[in-house]
């Protein structure tokens, strides 16, 4: 059940009240309650999906114990991770691998076809599989001890605010909170509700509203002019940010109202001054997972330059594949990897020779930062075209349309004044948090009337201009 559905908003207050009615000292009862709710909400997608979730939880829980006791922990770890990744490979990548392999054989004039599989992919499988596999790696590297309480571990993997969409938590962050005592903290709950409101605004009002324009243009791009395609690609860049960060904020907000603190997943990514910087701000929990469990294991930066570049490329190709079983995602990952390698070679990454503008002239320094933000934004927007398109051919065609400024229909932007208001709110919020220490964050203004005015205004925008039919969250399919 997505958080922006009416049904969720009907049951959430009830869940919330019952949760806090349970006395804090009965934390096991509270955890069992959360576990039951998490599974029921997950089964609301499709009951059979829960079998995959439960199997992966059970396997990695037992795997963690075996690794701790095993005389060959490395091989045990590989075995457990291999088996844990099997459902993800089968559900998500089987058809892709099958068709890619067949295509390759066809190119060699050979014919070999395995039947395709036609079933629904369990929701959030990439998220909970990575969280479970991350736990196994952490046990193997002795960063955490193997969990002894199966119910706590089940809740760690299936905790409903994050199971379908992340953030991907570390065992060392979430398990202690599950085991700890949680008390009703007014400020934490207020902060959670603020995040929930702002996340809802980003998702329902900004992302879904932009999505209508983006879907119209992208699905019929051959009829549209280069300028319209360009506008749609910029809108998609904003849409995917608001969609994913909005949903993440809702997940973090709901967790806070239940007394949990999840890791921040976004830190104003479009104000990044390089692609390397962008990945320190975008989908932070996934970047952290890939850095810890892939990049560093490959050798990270403690090797030759060429090997480091290869490690970056491999990590980003995996990141691309994680997002979807299509060559477009692989290319998207490859582009991001390539940009980062180029930045490293030119010394433009944050730790590079030209990573930070060192001039004493404030105006020049600000100008350089603005230019670098704009260049990064353009490069990221360019890569998103591959992410959005269903085939590499269409993506290339789309880019050609933009570059050649081709003729075609234009698509008017509906609700322009409202869209402008929303953009101002979004950009203002990010700029204020980035450069002005959140001075213009109206949700935390010292005057109550300003705070309440901001709450009511945001809520009104959601109801008046949100797309309220619980349209799917883009990242839910990952």
């Amino acid at each position: 059940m997505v958080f922006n559905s009416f049904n969720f908003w009907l049951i959430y207050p009830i869940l919330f009240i019952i949760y806090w009615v349970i006395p804090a000292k009965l934390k096991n009862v509270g955890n069992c309650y959360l576990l039951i709710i998490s599974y029921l909400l997950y089964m609301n997608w499709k009951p059979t999906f829960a079998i995959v979730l439960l199997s992966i939880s059970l396997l990695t829980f037992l795997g963690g114990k075996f690794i701790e006791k095993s005389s060959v922990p490395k091989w045990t770890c590989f075995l457990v991770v291999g088996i844990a990744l099997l459902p993800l490979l089968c559900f998500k990548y089987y058809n892709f691998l099958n068709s890619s392999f067949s295509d390759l054989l066809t190119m060699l004039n050979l014919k070999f076809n395995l039947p395709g599989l036609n079933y629904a992919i369990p929701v959030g499988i990439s998220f909970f599989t990575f969280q479970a596999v991350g736990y196994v790696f952490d046990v193997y590297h002795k960063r955490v001890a193997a969990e002894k309480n199966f119910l706590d571990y089940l809740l760690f993997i299936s905790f409903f605010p994050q199971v379908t969409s992340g953030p991907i938590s570390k065992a060392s962050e979430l398990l202690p909170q599950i085991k700890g005592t949680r008390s009703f903290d007014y400020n934490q709950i207020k902060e959670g509700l603020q995040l929930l409101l702002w996340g809802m605004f980003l998702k329902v009002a900004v992302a879904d509203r932009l999505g209508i324009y983006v879907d119209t243009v992208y699905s019929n791009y051959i009829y549209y002019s280069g300028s319209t395609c360009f506008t749609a690609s910029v809108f998609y860049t904003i849409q995917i940010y608001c969609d994913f960060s909005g949903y993440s904020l809702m997940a973090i907000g709901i967790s806070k109202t239940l007394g949990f603190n999840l890791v921040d997943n976004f830190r104003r990514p479009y104000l990044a001054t390089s692609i390397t910087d962008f990945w320190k701000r975008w989908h932070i929990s996934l970047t952290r997972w890939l850095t810890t469990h892939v990049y560093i294991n490959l050798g990270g930066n403690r090797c030759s330059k060429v090997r480091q570049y290869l490690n970056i490329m491999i990590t980003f190709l995996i990141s691309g594949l994680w997002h979807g079983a299509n060559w477009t995602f692989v290319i998207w990952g490859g582009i991001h990897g390539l940009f980062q390698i180029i930045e490293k070679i030119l010394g433009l990454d944050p730790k590079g020779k030209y990573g930070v503008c060192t001039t004493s002239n404030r105006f020049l320094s600000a100008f350089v930062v603005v230019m670098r933000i704009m260049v990064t934004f353009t490069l990221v927007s360019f890569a998103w075209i591959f992410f959005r398109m269903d085939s590499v051919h269409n993506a290339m065609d789309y880019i050609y349309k933009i570059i050649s400024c081709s003729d075609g229909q234009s698509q008017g932007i509906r609700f322009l004044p409202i869209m402008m208001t929303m953009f101002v709110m979004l950009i203002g919020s990010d700029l204020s948090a980035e450069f002005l220490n959140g001075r213009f964050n109206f949700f935390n203004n010292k005057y109550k009337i300003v705070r309440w005015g901001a709450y009511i205004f945001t809520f009104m925008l959601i109801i008046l201009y949100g797309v309220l039919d619980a349209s799917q969250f883009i990242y839910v399919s990952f």
Partner: protein
Amino acid sequence: MKKFIINLSIFFVVLIAVDVCFGFISNYLIKHAAGGEIQKTEYICNGTSEDLLIMGSSRAVRHYDPKIISDSLGVSCYNCAYIGCGCITAYGLLQALTSHYSPKYILYEVTPEFDYLKVEEDYSKYLGPLKLYSSVRGVDSIFSSIDPMEKYKMNSNMYRINSKLLQLVAENITKQNFISNGYLPECRLMATEPDDEVTKRYNCNDDYKVKCFNNIIQLCKRDKIKLVFIVSPLYNAEKSSEFDYCKELAHKYNIPFINHFNDSTINRNKDYFYDPVHMNVIGANAYTKNIIPELRAVFN
């Protein structure tokens, strides 16, 4: 805990007060809209008195000029079609308008994917024009059958005008003349030659749409309205089996069925279209004039 409950209660009380204010404001704006989509819906539901009504999807909105029909046939005509809507919306509108009068004829542009084919699971997009009239008898049941929660959501005045506030204000400030008797002409030309395959193929019928489509037939029968099915040209289209169900119904209920889907006098001319599915004003004029003899024969 106490502080939290008090603050949350105050928040919702303020929100309800704001919502009530929006109810008064939106009701006033709806009644005083000077022209445009909302005024069109208000007129269809409460003001229509024409002999002939045109219903259907965007293809009906763009393809039938009521003025040409009125001048040629000598009957008053209004285009009640909506972009992106099909029989679900049309049935709701008919329920609303037949409470104050019954037209003599209805010309229904059939769009299979909107009228009876299974395309999507979520019908809420068809409710858009009906939202402001969700409490009207007959319309309320459509909302309940599509989503039982919808009737609760409709208690919010702000939700009722979701996506419509600017339009409401604009229609009160300026008269939007581009809509003429419900007809919305499009002046653009088709810039690019489309792919060969212009329409997606859907194979099975949608139970709910079929039910609404049949309900329209029954309602017309009950109120003695002469219903005519019509299909306008689709660019470069060949014969299609998608209309078989419609033909079957037309045969069963003795409803005239005028099919220009693959009319080569129009659908091979690129200048008549602005995209493969919709004709521009030049095409619409030519097509409307083209069907006049057939309409005359049918109505007589």
